[in-house]
């Protein structure tokens, strides 16, 4: 498979060896774009977020623009880049500068185990035998669980936030509908509009009913003869913003990858910390309790109250920082 990517300043690249994928296929010529910050000789912490997150976690001198986890990662923050070296990647099959689906090539199916293998290859490339910690939220936590199962000798501690050992059926159902919307859009020649709509649907699953009720309760307006509710403006804005930066094929790739996620918690000997949010509809607390009960080396499992649902890892910095202080002490 050939590749065409664009690297921005601060991005580094690892040319992957042939990856034998969990689905049975192979990925040839793959590349992973990554970013590092922090002292060169400091303990390495891998920090990864959801499918829409990327390698740029927070601003630093090399890449001064804001990242997706400002306030958690940085000098003096919970993940302190004055004493820790942080590594983050662009997902295979995603919207960043790692290799992913192209219009004129068939991209093989990549699941969370394959992402873990790719990250192991990046660590081999960087000659890092052991990682001090893995802090993963959502998809990043799923991949962390896979990495801990496959390479326990290479990971000293795992922190998974809003991530479980498999996808629950309700969440898979919602994502199947999202994929159907995008596939219909691709077939009809209106992929960006379809992706915006799919993302809007996804947003309703990322947050809680309580939050949406609080923010958007209000009378609908009549716009051009049609009823329009306040929440629709928010959904459309979020959807359109996502569709501007995320290729539809990449969305399909990673969306399906979440649903294919399966890992046996009993196979994870690495010391593990879990954090879940009580209003999370995608990774419900009962599922995290299942995971916690099965992990051989569970260190702590925190159930945090939040009305931000699955997005709690972005919207509840106090809870996240409290956990990370314990993990990285």
């Amino acid at each position, binding site marked *: *498979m050939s590749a065409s990517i*664009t690297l921005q300043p601060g991005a580094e690249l690892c040319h992957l060896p042939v990856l034998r994928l969990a689905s049975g296929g192979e990925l040839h010529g793959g590349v992973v774009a990554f970013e590092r910050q922090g002292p060169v000789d400091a303990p390495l912490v891998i920090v990864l977020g959801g499918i829409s997150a990327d390698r740029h976690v927070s601003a630093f001198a090399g890449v001064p623009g804001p990242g997706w986890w400002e306030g958690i990662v940085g000098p003096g923050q919970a993940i302190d880049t004055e004493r820790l070296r942080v590594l983050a990647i662009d997902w295979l099959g995603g919207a960043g500068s790692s290799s992913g689906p192209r219009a004129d090539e068939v991209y093989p199916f990549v699941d969370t185990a394959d992402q873990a293998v790719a990250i192991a290859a990046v660590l081999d490339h960087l*000659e890092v035998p052991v990682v001090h910690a893995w802090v993963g939220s959502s998809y990043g936590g799923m991949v962390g669980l896979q990495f801990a199962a496959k390479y326990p000798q290479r990971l000293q501690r795992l922190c998974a936030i809003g991530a479980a050992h498999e996808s629950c059926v309700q969440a898979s159902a919602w994502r199947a509908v999202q994929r159907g919307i995008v596939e219909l859009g691709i077939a009809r020649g209106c992929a960006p509009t379809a992706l915006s709509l799919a993302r809007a649907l996804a947003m309703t699953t990322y947050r809680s009913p309580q939050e949406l009720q609080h923010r958007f309760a209000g009378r609908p307006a009549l716009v051009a003869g049609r009823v329009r509710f306040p929440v629709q403006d928010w959904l459309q804005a979020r959807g359109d913003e996502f569709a501007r930066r995320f290729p539809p094929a990449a969305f399909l790739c990673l969306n399906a990858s979440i649903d294919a996620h399966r890992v046996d918690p009993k196979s994870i000997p690495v010391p593990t910390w879990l954090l879940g949010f009580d209003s999370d509809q995608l990774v419900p607390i009962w599922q995290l309790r299942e995971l916690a009960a099965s992990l051989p080396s569970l260190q702590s499992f925190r159930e945090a109250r939040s009305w931000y649902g699955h997005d709690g890892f972005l919207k509840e910095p106090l809870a996240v920082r409290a956990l990370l202080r314990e993990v990285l002490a």
Partner: protein
Amino acid sequence: MFARDGLDVAAVLAHKQRGAAIAELPGAEAIPADVAIGVVGADLVVDATPSSAAGTEAALARGRAALRTGAFLALCGKNALAAAAAEWLLPPRRGRVGINAVLGGAGRQLASELDELRANCRALAVCGNVTTTVIVQAIERGASVAAGIEQARQLGLLEPDPTLDLDGSDAAVKLAAVQGAVFGEHWLRPVVPATIAREEVGALDPALLRDRARRGATTRLIGRAVRGGALRVAFEEVPASSPLAAPPDRVVYTYELPTGVRVHTGLGVGHDRTAQALLADVLAAEVRS
């Protein structure tokens, strides 16, 4: 080989199985390939002859003959593309020449992004000679230059004329080809690969290479071109996480754009992969109706 009334394939096979040459077939007549291309009037011409500086003019004649007849040209030879990149990749020939195999499997990406690159690229670089990568890696692991060359030979990576790999000529030709595509114009004289300053494998200092490896870097034979500037091919220290730190199973082309560095990776290395890259061009060819 062409017969206007149709080819008797069984007879040709039997003739070949007797060990005879095609030119000895009854009624056979040897004519120059470019003339034959004009006679046959094929929709698709696949030129899989090996690259050579001496064969450049003949390759150009074949390619021009194919394009004059309206055929799609699927090309393997680097020297022809280096001499005719602007002529064959810009209008009016645009879209009629497949260069995927020429550029190690990265030609289709270049072709599809050519407008953007021509408008915005300031400088480009090529890590396109996997033979030297194998030699460098062998040296980094403690081998001598000679042992590294032998390893490349055993892997089947050397060109039919191995000096093309070892004296930088192969890299220079690839550089001239992409430079012509991205920076060339119809009215500009193409860069002659032989005039490009280059370094040869014999100049490698094993101690220096190993020192770089100890520091977490590596060494690659890199071709560089700047818009409006000179071209050069040289062994450079490359950070391990640079896109130009290509492993020996692929070629890498980088293009500096205002938005970042565009990286094209091609897997058309070795006989099988080159054939696959050529086949990709054949399958994508616009066939004359």
